[in-house]
């Protein structure tokens, strides 16, 4: 299949690659760039394990083509911490025991960080609704809610520079 050249900025780094037009973003990230943080749980847009940020929007990368990202800025969980300092959502998930097997976690973190930009001071119901595109089979969500609340508090106290 003829390949197409794309350039995508991933976690701040410009990547130029020739990809098949049918290559999914999740496979581009995982197999081409070796960024294996985002996972595949369903390939049908239901589980959210593959969630990444594309130009500031949460995207399920299992149903998004790599060629759609030509010229875009993509952030994955590997790009969430800032120079070794954990993002508030990463800290929140750790402190509030918001993860068990960890498989949903990268997608959860990417969604949570974006959600808190959309809604910096959410109610519990808003968190549950805002995170409802991401499934977790282990935690029962209660501690994920707490983790997002923790991050919201932290971000409000010290707004990111």
């Amino acid at each position, binding site marked *: 299949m003829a390949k197409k050249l794309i350039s995508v900025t991933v976690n701040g780094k410009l990547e130029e690659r020739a990809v*098949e037009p*049918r*290559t999914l973003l999740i*496979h581009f990230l*995982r*197999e081409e760039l*070796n*960024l*294996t*943080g*985002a*996972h*595949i*749980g*369903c*390939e*049908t847009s*239901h*589980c959210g*394990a593959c969630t990444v940020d594309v130009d500031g929007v949460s995207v399920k990368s299992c149903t998004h083509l790599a060629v759609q990202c030509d010229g875009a800025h993509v952030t*994955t*969980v*590997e790009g*969430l*911490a800032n120079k070794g300092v*954990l993002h508030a959502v*990463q800290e929140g*998930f*750790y*402190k509030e*025991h918001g*993860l*068990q*097997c*960890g*498989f*949903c*976690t*990268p997608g959860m*973190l990417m969604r949570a960080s974006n959600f808190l930009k959309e809604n910096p001071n959410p109610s519990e119901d808003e*968190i*549950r*609704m805002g*995170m*409802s*595109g*991401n*499934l*977790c*089979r*282990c*935690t*029962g*969500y*209660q*501690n*994920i*809610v707490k983790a997002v609340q923790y991050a919201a508090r932290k971000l409000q106290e010290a707004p990111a520079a």
Partner: protein
Amino acid sequence: MSAVIQPADEREASLAGIGVSRLRKEDARFIQGKGNYVDDIKLPGMLHMDIVRSPIAHGRIKRINKEAALAIPGVHAVLTADDLKPLKLHWMPTLAGDVAAVLADEKVHFQMQEVAIVIADDRYIAADAAEAVEVEYEELPVVIDPYDALLPDAPVLREDLAGKTSGAHGPREHHNHIFTWDAGDLAAADAAFAAAPIKVEQHMHYPRVHPCPLETCGCVASFDPIRGELTTYITSQAPHVVRTVVSMLSGVPESKVRIVSPDIGGGFGNKVGIYPGYVCAIVASIVLGRPVKWIEDRIENISSTAFARDYHMDGQLAATEDGKILGLKVNVVADHGAFDACADPTKFPAGLFHICSGSYDIAAAHCSVKGVYTNKAPGGVAYRCSFRVTEAVYLIERMVDVLAQRLNIDKAEIRRRNFIRKEQFPYTSAFGFEYDSGDYHPALEKVLDAVDYPALRAEQAARRADPNSPTLMGIGLVSFTEIVGAGPSKMCDILGVGMFDSCEIRIHPTGSAIARMGTITQGQGHQTTYAQIIATELGIPSEVIQVEEGDTSTAPYGLGTYGSRSTPVAGAAIAMAARKIHAKARKIAAHMLEVSESDLDWEVDRFKVRGDDSKFKTMADVAWQAYHQPPAGLEPGLEAVHYYDPPNFTFPFGIYLCVVDIDRATGETKIRRFYALDDCGTRINPMIIEGQIHGGLTEGFAVAMGQQMPFDAQGNLLGNTLMDYFLPTAVETPKWETDYTVTPSPHHPIGAKGVAESPHVGSIPTFNAAVVDAFAHVGVTHLDMPHTAFRVWQALKAHNLAI
């Protein structure tokens, strides 16, 4: 020595040992995208495998044409059963004493059965090639209902078993019959029923469901033809068992097989079995001499690997007029699908289902389970439970409610009257299990007080009295006893290997440590909690204790993590290995302090000379000495291995209460409140326990309220994507209230019993009881799960309660 000695309680706190809500050691890698799951593994020269699957549930394979697939650039091989035949690998033994097709041999027995594999350069080409393989089938009549399967003229499903009148578990009475297994004393139960004034019975179907962890199954098999060594990274809850089976199947000596379970994205029983995909990837790697990766997709996962439940149960209770249970009889027809691939201890084809006398003192009991073949996928795993305990608890809790309703006794009161009393422990049930410890009455009262049970019942009565109420209110109350920690090797084995588990601990010269176990965490947090046990036993901070599992080349042999066996069995092995080290350390400390061992006291992290706090040696001091200059006659080093064969199972218990409000117009059920009290004995890490309970309750909620695997008459599975198969989101999931009591296990070295499955086992009948209770005033004693809005609305219609 004039330095101020740090007080013992401060030193103890700094260890972060048993009882501390220590934050998890494994989290750092997961929150930064640095986990290492099977699909993250990439080896040089690695090829990708995909599977051609049957679109029909029963049929003969007339022809397979590989040409078009092989013509695709980048395709290396297409293999069918005929290719595996010379290697005798087209069939494989199951853990349940049956055989299962690796690739369909002349016939397919269920939809999505593995028919052929393709190996290609990448997963896209492999998927193209799988599409391009042409298979022609001749359809055969399909059997979906296990009762139909047993009719005299039912189609013969397993032609390979023709003439076999007995199987691994006794005589076969019909061509689709697998086994009939009995426990208890039928004559005694019959006598109890004959003499009893009250008898109730209830039929119920526990639907077929799937554990559906977020990560599907898969492996990377890598055979090194020069060294003759096979390494396989695999999503397995039991890597050592996999190594033994792979060696048996492949003929590669066990010493040259290395199985690694890296990070596992949830298991819940789905990752206990040994699936055709694994075997095929291994064969392909051996044949091609290159690493081969196979990762199933979600549809394959739900359709073909490891269903759970599918028990059609008839329960009967005999009782006195005032509700004292005298006898229990249970008959089960178990739908095992096309091959008997249940993952149970070898001697127990229905697992530990005979825990079905529950938390109650029942003098006479009998159960009989009949396993049947149908045209569905094989499996029958313990979905977040210990070997059919979920089915057992569901059965007895439903029956006790049915009896309470018949006698018009409150559902809490009937439990009080029948509970095994504290002073009866250790208690031997009518099925022969010796319950180690329990204290049910205070736990029940604690829950009833916490929710103000009388007020709830009063509110319900008022609601029922109001014909215009838009909702029905139901209260579900369940008291469950689990049986976990399989198990004593005199009773439990897998393929002949006793179900012990193991631990090896090495203390390094500078006082830090590494420990390895035969189990494997899939989210339970072993790397955190196991270190806490060692910290308390040996006085080393848990922070400097590395825990490693899952690599058969480094970890001691163990049977793995499922059936809540890690803490009961491996946790005990850890404590026992630590105690061996402790005994040696005491000798070394005595030598260093120039006193006799009997003059030493152990305090938190040190041996001290009795009566003189200033004279002590910490475990770190001892470790240095052990490597530097051990006392004469003692080997250098400080390490130990322990294989722990538990003397008994452990019996965690709990009391759960759920309040639901059902919308009479839509059938939607709102979980207003769920209160879960668990008693898992000694609590190692309360934070992790609570997390496990939240997760188990959520999985139980999914099963009770939405999960099922429906089949049409042609054997098509109608719900095998996450679109159709219910996994609750944060929105549907209720908020959980948790509570606990502590009744340690008397036979476990640290008194722990295991916890992570209790909330699944206990919550399912609780949700169910709550929904049924909402209908109890119109005489309903039972409704089958799942309680989707549509099904509940149908029940409302049927009983003239819909508005």
